[in-house]
């Protein structure tokens, strides 16, 4: 049991730019041959908030887990105050002085605030918990953070922000020197973020080093002194916040070399652009469409043979936009019309009947039904649209499956194989086939090329072009900006859950998109058509 220490007696009053507090070098970790971390290093100084950034799969979570001993690293040294440590579990890491607070607060909501603060290390006398003493100390600890709570009340009575601060107070009170915060602000509103930041500033003044994982760039510049960026398990760069302008940071995160990004992007003319002399009218339009706390209201028009790309960082509201349009989430403002008639989009089933299709980003949890066969997965949406009483005969199913297995080159070409046994790229093709079988007017693709091999990647891009040429409207979310640039007729850039810019024609370039993503100044109006987005 860790003795209770008054939080302010042993914290060294190190200057904010002091000597390295935590140093990690040469961190590597492989999972089944896949390199999740490759020679990553990070130096945290006392009194510093250090942003750890990167897109999905960059290795942030793995790095944190390796630091705290939750996952055993393959190689690498970790030292705290110059002394090498090797925690083998989260508890050992806490004892060594490294505490972690996760996005989902790991506390017991039904216990009191005081009990949560001192869980597992309650002050006791003769083996009995001294409730009064515990409450007194809890009040004192929270007063440090300007928090005046009824410490006897259950934790769940307080807001998520307060729960976060209690979790942080608990971590710091356990003599933490290093505090790791994994997306602490993901579920907080602006005011709550300010309260949290006030706490973090106090901690910095006390010489505690903070590792701050987030997707919100504004917050990085508001609170952090230094930034480390990971990309594909490698160190993409590390710099002080002052030395790293936003645009460079976004480039670093998305992996665009300056030379590459500024080179004129190759824009292949789409067949639709050549054929369609007159621009076809929009068949589906969204006006002031949005949902509070989800995506700010936006305008969007979808035309046959027209590809709209959604670009932005992780968590910027791209997926949320697609879910609103497909009826998987429900808008609380604005109107949607299809062929001039207002539609409610209350469910995916309704969207399906309107001729929409949707390949979600989370292929395994929201796309495939793993134990069903490739054939059954392919016919699922078509069958759902036809309804229960009009089953596709087995022969029709076989024909549809065979057709798409041939057309999209799904391997192995066995329609009776459970789809869960296929590779990611082939699962994705089968999901595309599911929607193509319904002959949709609008196909929404959320990260269609994520996590699939290079060959399948190229085939899916080629397919997007072909579909477009056949007059299908496409809405594509992608982190691969070079890809978006080659096929999109219009690119909408999102930031902090709002549509902030709309690029068309020759404005669609990788540097142009990067600049829009990195755009910092809210006073400066976005380039086009996003007036209501604020």
């Amino acid at each position, binding site marked *: 049991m860790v003795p209770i220490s008054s939080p302010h007696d042993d914290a060294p009053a190190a200057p904010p730019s002091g000597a390295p507090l935590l140093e990690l070098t040469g961190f590597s970790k492989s999972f089944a041959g896949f390199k999740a971390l490759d020679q990553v290093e990070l130096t945290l100084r006392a009194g510093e908030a250090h942003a750890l950034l990167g897109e999905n799969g960059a290795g942030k979570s793995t790095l944190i887990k390796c630091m705290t001993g939750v996952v055993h690293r393959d190689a690498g040294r970790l030292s705290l105050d110059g002394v090498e440590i090797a925690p083998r579990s989260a508890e050992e890491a806490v004892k060594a002085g490294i505490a972690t607070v996760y996005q989902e607060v790991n506390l017991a909501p039904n216990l009191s605030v005081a009990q949560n603060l001192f869980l597992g290390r309650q002050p006791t006398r003769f083996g009995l918990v001294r409730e009064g003493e515990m409450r007194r100390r809890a009040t004192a600890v929270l007063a440090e953070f300007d928090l005046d709570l009824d410490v006897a009340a259950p934790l769940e009575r307080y807001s998520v922000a307060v729960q976060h601060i209690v979790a942080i107070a608990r971590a710091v009170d356990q003599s933490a020197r290093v505090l790791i915060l994994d997306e602490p602000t993901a579920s907080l509103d602006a005011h709550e973020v300010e309260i949290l930041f006030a706490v973090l500033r106090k901690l910095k003044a006390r010489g505690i080093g903070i590792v701050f994982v987030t997707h919100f760039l504004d917050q990085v510049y508001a609170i952090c002194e230094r930034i480390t960026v990971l990309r594909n398990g490698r160190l993409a760069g590390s710099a002080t916040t002052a030395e790293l302008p936003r645009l460079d940071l976004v480039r670093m995160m998305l992996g665009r070399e300056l030379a590459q990004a500024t080179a004129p992007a190759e824009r292949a003319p789409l067949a639709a652009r050549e054929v369609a002399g007159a621009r076809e009218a929009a068949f589906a339009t969204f006006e002031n469409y949005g949902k509070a706390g989800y995506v700010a209201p936006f305008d969007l028009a979808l035309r046959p043979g027209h590809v709209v790309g959604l670009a932005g960082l992780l968590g910027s509201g791209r997926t949320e936009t697609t879910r609103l349009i*497909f009826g*998987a989430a429900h808008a609380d403002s604005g109107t949607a019309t299809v062929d001039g008639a207002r539609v409610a989009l209350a*469910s*995916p*089933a309704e*969207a*399906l*009947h309107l001729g929409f299709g*949707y390949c*979600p980003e989370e292929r395994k*949890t*929201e*796309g*495939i*039904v*793993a*134990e*069903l066969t490739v054939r*059954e997965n392919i*016919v*699922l*949406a078509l*069958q*759902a*649209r*036809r*309804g*229960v*009483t*009009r*089953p*596709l005969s*087995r022969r029709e199913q076989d024909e549809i499956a065979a057709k798409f297995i041939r057309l999209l080159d799904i391997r192995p070409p066995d329609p009776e194989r459970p789809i869960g046994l296929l590779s990611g790229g082939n699962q994705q093709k089968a999901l595309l086939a*599911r929607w193509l079988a319904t002959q949709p007017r609008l196909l929404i693709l959320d990260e269609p090329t994520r996590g699939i091999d290079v060959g399948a990647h190229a085939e899916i891009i080629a397919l997007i072009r072909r579909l477009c040429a056949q007059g299908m409207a496409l809405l594509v979310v992608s982190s691969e900006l070079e890809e978006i640039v080659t096929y999109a007729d219009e690119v909408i850039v999102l930031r902090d859950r709002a549509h902030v810019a709309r690029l068309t024609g020759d404005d669609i370039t990788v540097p142009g998109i990067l600049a829009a993503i990195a755009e910092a100044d809210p006073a400066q109006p976005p380039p086009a058509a996003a007036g209501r987005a604020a």
Partner: protein
Amino acid sequence: MSLRLPRIGTSQVVALLAILAINWVVSPQFFDIRLQDGRLFGSLIDVLNRGAPVAILSLGMVLVIAMRGIDLSVGAVMAICGAIAASLADSHSLPVVLAAALGAGLLCGLWNGFLVAVLGIQPIVATLILMVAGRGIAQLITEGRIVTFTSPELAFLGGGSVLGLPTPIVITLALLALTVLIVRGTALGLLIEATGGNARAAALAGVGTRLITLAVYAWCGLCAAIAGVVAAADILGADANNAGLWLELDAILAVVIGGTSLFGGRFSLVLAVVGALIIQAMNTGILLSGFPPETNLVVKAVVVLAVLLAQSPRLKGLGSSLFGRRA
């Protein structure tokens, strides 16, 4: 319509044959069947006849479990519907009696479906409500007594015979055929398997998962009502305390023995009925062997354990690593 004869069904059929063989060893006249007064008699016919209520229950339960749900209330629903049938049998015509009993079962199923599909309550809790309350409702209907009746029309459903086969067997076979027709003859089977396998993916593919959930629980209630009427017709009365008692567990067991996972997804109607017959064959075998009937419970527990072990992926992994094969 494809009957989907089981890629995996051999083990259940082999188990049933093995138990029947053991019964034959224990009681050499097990397979003797004789015709008496136009009705077949014999131990094998007995297994089928006594197994009918659980087999009928399992035809509803298998669909609920395929949707990753469970229905604990079917035993209580049997008691309610049996009580209604027995109370009305001597004062009303058979169609009225059946309409009332089956309608009540349908309502019970819709109630469960409403709790699960619309209010989003966990199935085990949602159906627990009716499991507890249902027996009370049945007792209110019978006013705490054992209600008996003399109506020969209703009695025929339990004790009569059609072309020599006892009516409960005929009802079970007819219901099996009807269920296969409804589920596999339409797209319902595919949509149920998709929803049970991955509800989020199915919903995003446009499947009306909520309506299907409601329908499946309603069907399960209807099956329970039929089982309740057959059970009441068999004993010419309704005992609200004991009718269908613990049969929900037998029905769940039958479905699991039939190879349908409690995690939902793939299911087989025929094998669920085979599972019910396996359970009844065990019951009959123990009675024939002269062991005290209490042993039945222990034997059943061993069979459940064996089935679950056979389905456990971890054990399969262990087995394949022990024997040096790749999973």
